């Protein structure tokens, strides 16, 4: 199980790209952290979620 934004989900073995696609989120408007470490955008395809990972997906919306 992987904790994503506080919620336990069965995403073990998925890549960050697959996780974002499951969540229907565009990769252009997010920052993704796994266990307090930023995941570089170029590594979304190759970074695989592991059991026990804490993932934060920060979605940015417009306005400022």
């Amino acid at each position: 199980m992987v904790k994503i934004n506080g919620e336990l989900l069965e995403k073990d073995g998925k890549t960050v790209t697959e996780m974002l696609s499951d969540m229907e989120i565009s990769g252009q408007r997010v920052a993704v952290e796994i266990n307090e470490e930023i995941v570089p955008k170029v590594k979304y395809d190759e970074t695989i979620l592991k059991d026990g990972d804490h993932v934060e997906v920060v979605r940015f919306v417009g306005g400022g």
Partner: protein
Amino acid sequence: MPIPTREEMYRALEERHGAELQRKLDSASVAVCGLGGLGSNIAIALARAGVGQLRIIDFDIVDISNLNRQQYFPDQLGKPKAEAMRDTLERIAPYCNITSHNMKLTEENIPVMLADADIIVEAFDKSDQKAMLVNCVLENMPEKYLVSGSGMAGIAPSNMITTKRITKSFYLCGDGVSDAEDGMGLVSSRVLICAGHQAHAVIRIIAGEFDI
């Protein structure tokens, strides 16, 4: 009437904030990226609090559509925001060390432009640009504190806007959902609340108070 001396201004701040906090504020260096509704209000709050070094950056010019929420005046229309905001900050805090840049921040120039800031404030308008700055800073400058804003459009309740600490050095303010790109308008009071959250996160970090 002549303006107060540097010492008089400093003493007045010290009386309100205490000597220790004022010393920390005076030696702090903060970069405000984007000078719209968030950034213009954040920069003013930080200058008033006595932050010693402020770097302000925006590529845009003051437009009549900005005046509902951004800290510019009708007689500044057409001026670069970086210049207009520097003029205002110099009146508010004449001894603050202000560096203004009328330019667009990119992945290429961010590491150089923001190198000397202790704390970086993301105050952009467009969501893809917010993500670009945040990712760029977190990937390339992990030693910096970063305070970002996301979700303050419309007139939903004030109390939906919060400050979250995403990691040790990354703070995120806003309600996370109210999107100006969905056609929701930006209203002075709610933008000001988010700007207040961001400015206050900065001041707490400077004070060495990292909890939210």
